[in-house]
């Protein structure tokens, strides 16, 4: 299966004054895949998306989408891209239906023409079609924004942190909707600060400080984590983490939910660790080996860079 590249970025750089927002970015996105960008706030995700959607000019490097140059052919490209910015940016004072109709006409199409494409999503908010967009809940706003971004049947959909600030149920629903869009052969570029959403993508790029650290399928990303990982639990978490970081054989230790994820220099620990912790006043410690996830891999890559 050799799908053609929908997006192709080579050696892309972008600075805001002295701040390097993107540095030497290169990647390809294949036709019909959901490609995710995962990284913390300020990693450069939005800047990258704004360049691909022709809203921003790159300083250096080439960016092509749908076979069109994002700088030279911006006009043609805009007909075929659906973009959902991170901030809800539809007209709050227009109703759901008015917003949808407006974006359809702006793209020279009608809601009727592409209704089948958005039917699944729009049906959730259709009962509220006469409500001003500003009065919708977060999840409904997001569905409306997605409908508006899809109404002209774009070949490429760019979603900037679509699930930020949305409840867990709506988030899960949203990913289901994206997956259903695959049958229309729409390529989706999506960014998220949530590691757990990485598993929903076909491929994922980890981005940090304007650089891509790794690109792979989400299952394979965690395979890049080669050390043995241990989950450590004790009642006094703060004392535990300071003690573990003082322990000479600790390689890394960071909080992970209720527990701490710890690696050791030679991938094992012995009783001296427990003695050490005891001497620091930490007792009732349980240690067990655990499987690394994307977040572990991400933190490991962050530490290296």
């Amino acid at each position: 299966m050799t799908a053609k590249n929908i997006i192709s970025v080579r050696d892309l750089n972008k600075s805001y004054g002295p701040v390097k927002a993107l540095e030497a970015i290169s990647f390809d996105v294949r036709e019909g895949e959901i490609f995710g960008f995962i990284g913390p706030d300020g990693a450069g995700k939005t800047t990258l998306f704004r360049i691909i959607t022709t809203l921003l000019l790159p300083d250096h490097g080439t960016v092509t989408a749908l076979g069109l140059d994002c700088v030279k052919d911006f006009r043609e490209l805009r007909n075929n891209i659906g973009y959902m910015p991170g901030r809800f940016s539809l007209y709050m004072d227009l109703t759901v239906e008015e917003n949808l109709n407006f974006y359809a006409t702006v793209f020279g199409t009608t809601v009727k023409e592409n209704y089948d494409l958005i039917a699944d999503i729009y049906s959730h908010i259709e009962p509220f079609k006469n409500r001003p967009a500003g009065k919708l809940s977060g999840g409904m706003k997001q569905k409306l924004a997605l409908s508006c971004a899809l109404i002209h049947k774009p070949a490429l959909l760019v979603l900037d942190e679509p699930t930020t600030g949305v409840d867990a149920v709506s988030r899960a629903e949203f990913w289901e909707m994206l997956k259903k869009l695959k049958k229309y052969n729409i390529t989706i570029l999506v960014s998220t600060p949530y590691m757990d959403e990485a598993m929903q993508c076909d491929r994922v790029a980890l981005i940090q400080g304007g650089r891509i650290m790794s690109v792979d399928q989400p299952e394979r990303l965690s395979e890049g984590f080669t050390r043995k990982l241990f989950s450590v639990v004790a009642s006094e978490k703060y004392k535990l983490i300071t003690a573990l970081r003082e322990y000479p054989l600790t390689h890394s230790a960071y909080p992970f939910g209720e527990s701490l994820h710890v690696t050791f220099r030679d991938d094992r620990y012995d009783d001296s660790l427990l003695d050490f912790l005891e001497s620091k006043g930490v007792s009732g410690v349980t240690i067990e080996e655990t499987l690394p996830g994307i977040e572990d891999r991400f933190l490991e890559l962050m530490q290296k860079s």
Partner: protein
Amino acid sequence: MRTIFYLIRKEFLQIFRDKFLGKAIFAIPIIQMLILVPAVTFEIKDVRLCIVDKDMSTESRELVGKLVGSSFFKVRNATFTENEANDLLHLDKCDLILQIPAGFGRDIGKGTPTKLMASANAINAMNAQLSWAYLNGVIMDYNMNILANGIGNRSFTAIPQIEVTNRYWYNEMLNYNFYMQPGILGILVLAIGFILAGLNLVKEKEIGTIEQMNVTPVKKYQFILSKIIPFLIIGLIDLALGITIGKLVFHVPFAGSMWLVFMCSSIFLIAVLSLALLISTFSGTQQQFMFTAFFFMIIFILMSGIFTPLESMPGWAQKIDLLNPVVYIMRINRMVMLKGSTLYDIRSEFMALVIFAIASTTLAVNRYRKTA
């Protein structure tokens, strides 16, 4: 062109969805006309005069009688000492003091020259000047009488003197309403065009809707037009409202062509709308825009010639004023409405507006870039 139509329809939808704005854009011009036209006037009535009559002669009483008889003055106080009168001026109890020195009547009777002294409160320079001019008029009149009487006593031949009869063209009665109304029309249209359109664009920036707009195939000239046309239409409706009120309430004559006024106001509106959009491309927030727009508005209005004659401004200010579009619309409105000027008569003002409109539209379209 269908796109522009849809964009404009969206603007109107938003304007009239706004419960306040939808009504205010029609209510404000009506209120503005009803208040400003009769309120802004330079006619001075009832100047509070304080008389210090140290003479108390027949002649001085005659002069005071003349002043009391004039509709301009109201003799509020009469004192006998200068200090007392000055105190009244300090306390803002009177606007003007006239001192008649002792021996005034005696000197007139003897035929020797005599003097009067007037002091005016010049906190408001314009008021002081005007009331002084009125006072002067009355005294001159009185003076002529004395002269006539003096000479008349000796001979019966009339003294030769030049009598000036004046006629105020285009506004015979010097009705200030007639003078103000065409000017206020210009300001009314300016306010609609300048503030509303600019704020609208900055709001799209602030909320972020412009971002969504920018990824659509809408071209920048289409977008700018969709911001200009709705407010152009509203501005012209407001102009029609203003003219109707002028006619019905203040009976302002309309000597010239209605179409000419509307055509010129359209060009003026395009000019100021584009200028506002240009400012809004430089502003990131509504606050920034308001501050800048207010600055321009004040300069435009105060230097427009609505209150003060342009000719009395210093030369450099008159040069700056060449860039003030309000000057031209003010002149056009007054000339066409009061004098019945034709397009040919106002050609230079008309051309200035056209150039202004073309320049600001071009600048606004170019400044508003869709990429970055």
